């Protein structure tokens, strides 16, 4: 199991960040992904594998300031 924004989700092997975002339907283009406290750069979404037990935060960034 992993946790995505404090919701439990079943883990499987070779789960990349890209796939995880698809599964969770996070299609919004401007997000920050943190896994176990570490930021994952956008360029690493395809190759970065989510470990079992991971605590994942997906933060949506909205324009305005």
């Amino acid at each position, binding site marked *: 199991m992993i946790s995505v924004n404090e919701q439990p989700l079943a883990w499987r092997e070779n789960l990349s960040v890209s796939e995880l975002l698809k599964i969770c339907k996070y299609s919004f283009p401007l997000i920050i992904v943190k896994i176990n406290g570490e930021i994952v750069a956008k360029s690493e979404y395809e190759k970065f594998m989510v470990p079992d037990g991971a605590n994942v*935060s997906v933060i949506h960034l909205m324009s*305005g300031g």
Partner: protein
Amino acid sequence: MIMAENTIFDIKNISRSEFETQFYKRNPPGSSGVLKTKTVAIAGAGGLGSNVAVALVRAGVYNLIIADFDRIELSNLNRQQFCYEQTGRLKVAALKENLLKNTAAIFAEADLLVEAFDRAEMKAMLIEAWCKAYPQKFIVAASGLAGTGRCGLIKTSAYGRLIICGDQQSEASEANGLIAPRVAMVAAMQANCAVEILLTGGVKV
């Protein structure tokens, strides 16, 4: 700030230490002694950044590094801390987007960074660059502050040393504009988090 302070000293004929004593008299005891020694970087000097800067100076933070590439327009004056006479002037020295790539160098001396940009793409670039360069330092960012009402949705969320203020859902657009009360609320939350981090080393959400 220094010039304004000097002018006040001349008019009121009081010493700098007496000025500081009176100015910070109502702040929490012991806070100004700590905050005057810290440096805060603010990326952006618009609706968020200008309000954050004013709040931090009033809180007693003496050293600010502010970066922005924009000039002041009339359409800024509904929510930003500038006046009519200043329109057309640079908000601070031009830095443009390549600033983001050199974040590490520009903001290196800061104890923490306040993200106060307008566009979400720039927010994302800055957060990523800062967290990679300074995983041990805090960044206080804003996301979701457009429109009116919905005070109860605005919150502070902590993701390790990345702090996000805002409702994380209200995107600025032509239909959903930026208006002073909600922008200032989020700016005040960012300044509040910055002061808490400087005084206590963390944020309690």
